């Protein structure tokens, strides 16, 4: 289905089956140690193969169709899945959270992609799926995780620190002023993994995209240039994503009369 590029060994399905033997090692450990993971392992193995195979088929079709609207459709589906994943990690529902997450992820991803694709990488045409889809995927995946982290922290802090918030309200603070320390804590919590990641990137582990490019035969020096762009791109996307999400979400907990909607906590 795929033709190998320069310097890449095209894996046959037989070679993939050989890799499947590795799963037997895991199954053996699970059985011997009575971990009871065999069922999940089986499902996980099947899902890995089926999901990736389907994604491969779809991407191959989109790549060969070479139409901007197909690329856009893929991005919309990716954004919808990321939105659902970000929302489903929240402990308690927030009214309208789907729209909030969708807006936060879409705006942060669109803004970052516009800059990276339009100004930094500049592929021709701009919607070239080889660039747009993997880059959007990385951005969405990271924004989703950080928005979920921020939302989770905001929610647990609003509950744990509700008296503190109401003490500020009772002292004459506006709603937004009263929750500001909590918003800050949630943003910090969501950005720390990104900032920490920048400290150790390439030292502890080669980033996935860089690994992929090197495996695909790109020069490591090309690969690192891409990786540097990716690191900054993901940092800004996660920052924007969690900022938007927290700002929009916290407003759901406040009323125009500067009240905390305790019953939502």
């Amino acid at each position, binding site marked *: 289905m795929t033709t190998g590029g320069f310097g890449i060994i095209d894996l046959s399905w037989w070679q993939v089956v050989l890799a499947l033997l590795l799963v037997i090692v895991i199954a053996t450990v699970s059985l011997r140690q009575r971990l009871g993971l065999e069922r999940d392992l089986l499902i996980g193995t099947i899902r890995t193969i089926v999901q990736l195979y389907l994604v491969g088929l779809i991407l191959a079709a989109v790549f060969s169709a070479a139409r901007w609207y197909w690329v856009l459709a893929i991005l919309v589906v990716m954004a919808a899945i990321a939105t659902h994943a970000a929302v489903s990690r929240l402990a308690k529902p927030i009214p309208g959270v789907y729209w909030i997450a969708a807006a936060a992820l879409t705006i942060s991803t669109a803004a970052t992609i516009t800059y990276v694709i339009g100004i930094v990488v500049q592929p021709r045409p701009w919607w070239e799926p080889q660039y747009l889809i993997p880059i959007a995927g990385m951005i969405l995946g990271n924004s989703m995780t950080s928005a979920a982290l921020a939302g989770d922290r905001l929610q647990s802090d609003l509950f744990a620190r509700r008296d503190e918030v109401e003490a500020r309200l009772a*002292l004459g603070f506006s709603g937004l002023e009263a929750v500001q320390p909590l918003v800050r804590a949630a943003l910090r919590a969501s950005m720390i993994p990104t900032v920490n990641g920048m400290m150790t990137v390439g030292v502890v582990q080669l980033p996935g995209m860089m690994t992929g490019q090197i495996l695909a035969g790109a020069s490591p020096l090309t690969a690192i240039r891409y990786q540097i762009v990716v690191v900054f791109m993901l940092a800004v996307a996660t920052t924007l994503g969690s900022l938007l999400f927290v700002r929009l979400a916290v407003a759901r907990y406040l009323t125009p009369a500067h009240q905390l909607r305790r019953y939502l906590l």
Partner: protein
Amino acid sequence: MTSSSEPIFRVEHLSLAYPGRRGQPLAQILTDVSVEVVRGGALTLVGPSGSGKSSLLRCLNRLEEPTDGVVRFDGRPITELDPRELRRRAALVLQAPVLFEGTVRENLMVHAPAVTLDVSESRLRETLSEVGLEAALLERDAAMLSGGEKQRVTIARALLRDPQALLLDEPTSALDPPNATLVVQTICSLRESRGLSIVAVTHAPELVRRLGGALLYLVKGRVQAYEPVHGAGVIDNRLQAFLSGTHP
């Protein structure tokens, strides 16, 4: 409108309900409550736990939004006032004193960015002494104070806003008896010296007796009794029954 005969708070047919979660019915907290607090007077809210005392208190400074009825402050419906201004004029003191990270001084100086507050050195010292605390406390880490000191710092913080009314939500229930007595004394002397109107949720008979005024007995969000504490009002054994929530 704001003549001195006008009560500081007038609550008319107030009801409060919380929206139910997905598919669940409304949670009715308060039903048709009407009550007044005269200027400089006192009102004590008593009743079994879950009877809506704290919710009623929180309606007075609009931390809660009634689903029905009107709350008037100084003659005006509170929905016509800026809630932030209302909360400065009707200051709430919570059961568990909330102090922020930092020193006592920093806690006293806390204020919304858009508001100017006189927090001169002399005013801070004066206010601390009003609640029976020494000026030396100003530089102390607020987290290191005793429960009684913390509660009095939160009262001082409210006083710096020159409130007309104090709303007290079980101000002494988290304190040991000596500290509770000190806080009761502080509240009563402030009421005298500043002419403050006081609305208190409390289980402390000492505070009820010393505040005098009226007593509102709530059960399941409805008024069961509303009468003066002294004079022809509640006698001791009935007060005990009210406070323990066992009055029929």
